């Protein structure tokens, strides 16, 4: 485990950064992509925990660092749980519904990475938030 060069140090740093990255993104206010997963009772019952895990896993796979994934309370669209709201900097927040493992990964690879809208998953805002 002895570090004998700057390269050794950088290797250890990269591995450790993955583990503490969510603290840095927590502090930062720059262009962070925020993903909010509805984890109220209906959300959890519909499988939001698996959705959350899938999002985290895909983010790590794609090696994206400017993403913050948080769980929130009830977003209000109980008919379409699990729901995920995505705030891309400079864009209107979009809520996706019925997000299972596969869809969650597509949100990352298609919407977040390439701004490709997933039309059939978007939930229309039917009420105005206070």
């Amino acid at each position, binding site marked *: *485990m*002895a*570090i*004998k*060069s*700057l390269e050794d*140090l950088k290797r*250890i*740093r990269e*591995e*450790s*950064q993955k*583990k*503490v990255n*969510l*603290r840095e*993104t*927590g*502090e930062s206010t720059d262009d962070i992509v925020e993903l909010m*997963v*509805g*984890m*109220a*009772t209906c959300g*959890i019952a519909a499988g939001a*925990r698996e959705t*959350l*895990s899938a999002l*985290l*896993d895909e983010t*790590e796979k794609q090696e994206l660092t400017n993403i*913050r*994934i*948080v*769980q*929130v*309370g009830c977003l209000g669209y109980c008919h379409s749980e699990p729901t995920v709201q995505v705030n891309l900097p400079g864009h209107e927040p979009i809520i996706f519904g019925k997000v299972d493992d596969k869809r969650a990964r597509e949100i990352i690879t298609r919407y977040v990475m390439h701004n490709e809208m997933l039309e059939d998953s978007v939930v229309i805002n039917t009420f105005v938030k206070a």
Partner: protein
Amino acid sequence: MAKIRTHLMVCGGTGCISSGADTLITELENILVQKGYDKEVKVVKTGCFGFCGQGPIVKVHPDNVFYVQVQAADAKDIIEEHVIKGRHVDRLLYVEPIENQKMDLHRDMPFYKKQLRIALRNCGMIDPENITEYIAFRGYEALANVLTMKREDAVKVVKDSGLRGRGGGGFSTGMKWELTMRSPGDQKYIICNADEGDPGAFMDRSILEGDPHSVLEAMAIGGYIIGATKGIIYIRAEYPLAIHRLEVAIAQAREYGLLGKDLFGSGFDFDIEIKLGAGAFVCGEETALIHSVEGKRGEPTKKPPFPSESGYLNKPTCVNNVETFANIAPIFLNGAEWFASIGTEKSKGTKVFALAGKVNNVGLVEVPMGTTLREIIYEIGGGIQNDRAFKAVQTGGPSGGVITVADLDTPIDYDSLKAIGSMMGSGGMIVMDEDNCMVDIAKFYLDFTKDESCGKCTPCRVGTKRMLEILERITEGHGTAEDLDNLQALAYMIKDSALCGLGQTAPNPVLSTMKYFREEYENHVFNKRCATGSCKALAKYSIIADKCIGCTACARVCPVNCISGKVKEVHVIDQDKCIGCGACFNACKFSAVLKP
């Protein structure tokens, strides 16, 4: 499959641990296991967030929510409501006192808004007992880079940054390292002064508890520059948690090859050992410290020769403060220019202050040099407790002086505070209100310095004792005009003739309080009165005749039976017998008792 998606950072500084942080952590971990969330959520014991008056503190990442005054019983709510359901636990949020608003983002809080954390950069962000986390936040990269530089170039970076000793002396760190570098010697030493003797100061302790590696890395950098292969950390035994964290850090650094032989394959060897001090204030003075490390009694010796020529075991030695070291890695990572762009013309960078006393927000703050006292006390500190009036702020511990309302807009730096009769010192800042007696404060500090005097030189050994005797006479009502003159003359004499900094600065609290609060001293001496009631021997109560209805409530509670008067007749307190306990004041329902 589960992955860690939330970190619960719990403050593990001594303050929060004493308030139950360890129990809180165990409770959080147990509930996580119970609910099956332990693979997704990690509890991290971290360093001091600085907001000590509101501890224990829990910060949730990446949500960036800041919970205050969290007890073990709150663990259930944090997990069930926030972690599982994503609903913030409102009642644990900080309530900002002026607008009475709940705040969850700590960067918006008035306590944190003006702070710039450089020395404290990792405190609250990392687990200090895990070296990989320090590395994740660019730890040891500075050392790797410095080892590829020529020593002359590296020391130039430190000189250009303008970093000055944070222990209070304010000597240019770059210059000190250069002088030691140039001193001839077959073995040199670099020593970290972690004695932190000032009462009420805990800046260094928090850095060592929350980010020990920053000090280890800086010592290695300093060692390389000056040519020392051995580092010693002199830390007072009263800091068991800091000692433990340092021991863990040193062991891990050795394991990873970051301390020991041939660091980064450069051929440079460096290792560190810890030496415990026995808590003598004088051992914070560098020559006394060196003698203590040598195993002798901690007594200062004359300078020159300076330690950079002849110090520990008569070899070239460099002694630096913990906070000075904590600034070294960022200087190399971000550049000397970056550091020099912060602060004032002669005092660069930031300073950590331990804000204590009668302020609302007690704790550790780090601000750029040049921030004014008013900003620190009123904006960051949240103003005086219970809406009392500000009287003075004492800076620099027992070596410093008081600063009054007139000078509150002074920008803080080494030279500006000296110019108004105080000093920045190591960073202690004690705020006082209208109920503090200035003579009593001077007596408190002198009592401390007299106890801590090593006894070697007559001016300090005898002088501080005589000054204390005069102050005691004054606070007991036996002071005379001659006492005031003698006090002042003694003070100047001791300042001029004492051997080391302890004696040379011990009279400062007296001189400073006499300069700004002369009328309080005269009140004690000529009128035998202490307006604040702190000096018990002088505090006398009296009854306002117009308001007294003769209910006898006061007479019944007086412990020395000094209140006379019949029922329904005005009562009178015998001034000679009154011991100033205040029981009558508390008992009277008609505000007829006058508090002195």
